[in-house]
């Protein structure tokens, strides 16, 4: 077996030197590999009952009546509630977004007056078993006065459209405009203008383990315990306190092992709040585990946007200005923090990695009678790069330039840093041109173009797609995602036996936090990984935390644990100095020993002294070895400035991606022949984990473009309701991506930039460009992100190309053997 470049670079290494930077296999694995993972559905509480949720079967309607009587009499049923009953014992949720133009909105844990998408929760039945709860849920009789469904975002904004919220007088939930530079002058000075409409389709992150919650209220203590598969357990605690009225001091949220999240579990689901509210009403714990139908129709969808974009260019390929209008379909907005947030992120990155100084964007977030749109790995960023990278290719074609060349002529220059983008983002990044040349080298761009020419002469449709991105990591989304974001907490405790407990406010969903945080702590405290234990996801263990999203965990939790560990190391050096009768400054820590002038003390002896031998602790130091650190680089904006500019992220990661595809115009199938990605997430803590994130994100990018598409009919009925309708990549449908790292350290603690999302932000653009490039000889223009075979076939047909079934025979002759 020959190793690819990525494999060689990530060959595991467990010997010598610092832990950081090494491909160490994960400490999480052994438990998960042997069936020892404990996911939400594995949580068992004595006396626990099971919930089934009754969901709307109509896309838009007024609830006339809900009859729970038959369900309440069904075998095993112990309780049932509808929305009006629970609205009297709970507070409504709200989007809480501090944006002046956003419509006011509150909603309850169950629908009360209207339903606005198929799958919206309207009632809940609690029974002894899940199957009896589901049987009884079918007996709940809900009568609706059906209303006309609104399923298209552009049509939703037209005059005369039926309204989801009559009180708003329109379906425009949020409109937002931003202008930088003199856009009109840029267009007036241009040699030409390219105008396109690019449509981006609806997909779902689809963690294999769906959402769920399990809650228990202890009336004797007033304490509420909630288990939830949630990426932000502390933030969920805050929301649960809002909704239930129980103080945060009396709520514990535990996020157990999570079977993926991908942003879908970043929200505070109505159902998570519902289960907590119900638990306050009944004398037993209640569990709800989302099934796959529920996950597909009533959890969190993503991406759907229409971009009308114009770029003004000079004949030398330089882009002078850009105008964009975005209509984002956000479905039902009743999802904390709503689909407006990723759409706002899209608007901030539309100029991509290019030095375009005149820019305007107009955003409209339209509500429709479809499942709420929300977070999915990439969070609005893939859409921005599909658009700008598509436009770069179209410009190259218009001017007869190579797509690589038109990019070279527009890249953000290497100086100055930070480069302040048209929306105020402060790019602290490495070189975009050098990263791109690295990609062309890794891809073998010249040879790929020659091979493409040869393939075209044989009548084959081979295409090459390129893309370049900058990615907001460790964001503070205060103004676009409500109250949460910004700082992170972590505590590090050295126990009397020298073992270390680390607690972080982030929450791994598979990203290997226990491993990479241990690597960082191990380097600071000169300890092996076996001495370090990392815990996340239990609000009782740490005052607060912001969870895991926005590629923030290595940067924010990493920064916090490094600082906490250093404080402990310095304190232990002072204790060791006292014990060795030496100067603190002369005491060094390495390989588990404190050393000074030939004398040495084991780490564990100092740890023990700090707790159990107070006479060895210098009088100016407190006993014990525990530090809690709040880390925030304080370099992000909480609100836009007067020009509407804001810096959303603590640091920015970058990547360039390229793919080579072959399209079969007869079937519409797209085969990926090669995929390459150059990645800069600053200092890499564990290449094995980072490369795994890139490969996994590539799979989701391939799925999103070539296989996956959530669809509804005109009445708002979902057509993708099982994994037989919604196809995700399987074994054999994903290429192996070849990876090269550039490590431009950030200025933050540790030098990290975020990792985990680059693959899904850069590769959709590269894939769309590659398919377009493949089909260019027959006049196909790709202006959409969904390139499932049926769509590719439609594009081929619309281009007027008729597939000659005998073409291979004419080319190669009949080969009958």
């Amino acid at each position, binding site marked *: *077996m020959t190793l690819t470049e990525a*494999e060689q670079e990530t060959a*595991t290494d467990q010997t010598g030197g610092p832990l950081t930077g090494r491909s160490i*296999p*994960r400490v*999480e*694995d*052994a*438990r*998960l*590999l*042997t*069936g*020892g*993972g*404990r*996911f939400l*559905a*594995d949580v068992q509480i004595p006396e626990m009952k099971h919930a089934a949720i009754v969901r709307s079967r109509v896309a838009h309607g007024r609830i006339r009546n809900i009859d729970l009587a038959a369900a309440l009499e069904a075998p095993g049923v112990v309780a049932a509630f509808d929305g009006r009953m629970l609205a009297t014992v709970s507070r409504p949720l709200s989007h809480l977004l501090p944006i002046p133009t956003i419509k006011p909105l509150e909603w309850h844990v169950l629908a009360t007056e209207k339903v606005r998408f198929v799958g919206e929760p309207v009632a809940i039945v609690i029974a002894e078993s899940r*199957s009896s709860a589901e049987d009884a849920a079918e007996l709940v009789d809900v009568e609706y006065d059906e209303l006309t469904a609104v399923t298209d975002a552009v049509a939703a904004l037209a005059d005369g459209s039926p309204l989801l919220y009559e009180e708003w007088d329109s379906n425009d939930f949020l409109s937002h405009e931003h202008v930088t530079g003199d856009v009109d002058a840029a267009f007036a000075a241009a040699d030409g203008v390219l105008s396109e409409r690019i449509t981006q389709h609806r997909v779902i992150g*689809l*963690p*294999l*383990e*769906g959402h769920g919650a399990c809650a228990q209220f202890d009336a004797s203590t007033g304490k509420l315990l909630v288990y939830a598969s949630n990426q932000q357990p502390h933030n969920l605690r805050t929301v649960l306190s809002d909704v239930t009225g129980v103080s945060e001091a009396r709520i514990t949220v535990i996020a157990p*092992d*999570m*079977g*993926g999240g*991908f942003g879908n579990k970043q929200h505070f689901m109505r159902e998570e709040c519902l289960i907590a509210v119900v638990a306050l009403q009944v004398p037993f714990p209640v569990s709800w*585990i989302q*099934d*796959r139908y529920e996950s597909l129709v009533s959890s969190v969808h993503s991406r759907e946007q229409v971009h009308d974009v114009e770029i003004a260019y000079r004949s030398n390929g330089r882009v002078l200005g850009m105008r964009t209008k975005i209509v984002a379909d956000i479905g039902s907005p009743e999802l904390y923090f709503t689909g407006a947030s990723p759409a706002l992120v899209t608007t901030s990155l539309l100029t991509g990695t290019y030095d375009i100084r005149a820019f305007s964007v107009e955003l409209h977030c339209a509500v429709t009678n479809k499942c709420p749109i929300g977070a999915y790995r990439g969070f609005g960023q893939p859409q921005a790069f599909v658009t700008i990278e598509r436009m770069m290719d179209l410009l190259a074609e218009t001017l007869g330039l190579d797509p690589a060349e038109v990019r070279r002529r527009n890249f953000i220059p290497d100086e100055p840093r930070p480069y302040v983008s048209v929306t105020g983002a402060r790019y602290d990044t490495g070189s975009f041109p050098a990263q791109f040349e690295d990609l062309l080298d890794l891809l073998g761009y010249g040879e790929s173009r020659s091979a493409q020419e040869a393939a075209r002469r044989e009548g084959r449709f081979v295409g090459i797609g390129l893309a370049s991105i900058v990615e907001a990591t460790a964001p503070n989304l205060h103004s676009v995602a409500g109250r949460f974001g910004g700082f992170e907490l972590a505590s590090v405790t050295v126990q009397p036996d020298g073992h270390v407990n680390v607690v972080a406010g982030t929450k791994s*969903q*598979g*990203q*290997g936090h226990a491993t990479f945080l241990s690597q960082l702590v191990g380097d600071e405290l000169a300890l092996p990984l076996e001495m370090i234990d990392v815990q996340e996801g239990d609000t009782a263990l740490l005052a607060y935390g912001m969870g895991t999203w926005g590629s923030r965990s290595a940067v924010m939790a990493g920064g916090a644990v490094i600082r906490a560990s250093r404080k402990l190391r310095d304190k232990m050096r002072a204790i060791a100095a006292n014990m060795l009768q030496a100067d603190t400054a002369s005491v060094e820590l390495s390989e588990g020993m404190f050393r000074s002038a030939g004398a040495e003390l084991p780490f564990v002896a100092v740890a023990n002294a700090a707790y159990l031998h107070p006479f060895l602790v210098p009088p100016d130091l407190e006993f014990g070895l525990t530090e809690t650190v709040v880390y925030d680089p304080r370099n992000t904006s909480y609100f836009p400035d007067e020009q509407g500019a804001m810096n959303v992220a603590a640091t920015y990661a970058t990547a360039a991606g390229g793919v080579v595809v072959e399209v079969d115009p007869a079937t519409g199938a797209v085969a990926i022949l090669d995929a390459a990605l150059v990645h800069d997430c600053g200092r890499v803590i564990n290449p*094995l*984990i980072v*490369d*795994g994130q890139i*490969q*996994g*994100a*590539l*799979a*989701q990018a391939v799925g999103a473009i070539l296989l996956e598409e959530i669809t509804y009919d005109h009445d708002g009925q979902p057509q993708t309701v*099982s*994994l*037989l309708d919604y196809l*995700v*990549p*399987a*074994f*054999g449908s*994903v290429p*192996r*991506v070849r990876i090269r790292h550039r490590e431009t350290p950030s200025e933050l603690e540790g030098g990290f930039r975020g990792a985990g999302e680059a693959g899904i932000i850069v590769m959709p653009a590269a894939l769309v460009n590659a398919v377009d490039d493949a089909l260019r000889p027959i006049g196909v223009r790709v202006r959409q992100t969904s390139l499932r075979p049926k769509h590719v076939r439609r594009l081929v047909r619309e281009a007027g190309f008729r597939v000659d079934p005998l073409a291979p025979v004419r080319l190669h002759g009949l080969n009958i053997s």
Partner: protein
Amino acid sequence: MDLRMRVNDKAVHLAVEPRDSLLEVLRDRLSLRGAHAACEQGACGACTVLVDGRAAQSCLLFAVQAEGSEVRTIESVGTPGSLHPLQEAMHRHHALQCGFCTPGIVMAALDLLESTELFESGQPLDRETIEAAMSGNLCRCTGYHPIVDAIEEVASGRIQSDGRSSTAAAAAGSEHLAEVEG
């Protein structure tokens, strides 16, 4: 209904509802929670166990269909302190991230690696064969290649150690199992 089967080498006798799936009985009645419910439609393979030595999606089987069968679950394969060679290879290759699909992946791959038909056919266990055999299992995290790498490595190790016969390797695997169960 009365159900008698052997699960992880232990005789099991219990009363079940006709509609109980094998997955529900394993998880809720026998507390073997390593097999997971993720689609309950036979589309994802997270619930995969071995029934009479072959990979089966336990969400699609009624429990009573396992009457008289030998069922093996992830709980019988390796321990955190003593991983099965396949689990060891998956660990080294970073072939799992969230770990939710992992028990199903391990069981499906064991079926493939222990399949005597395949070895007797003389077919090499190449990537395409592995991908075809594993196509009933979805993973949303890894992008699959690390899993195929791990399976390929275990398979090639067997071929190198004892030619094209799988017998010795399979026996070694069983010994390992016996050890951890004992």
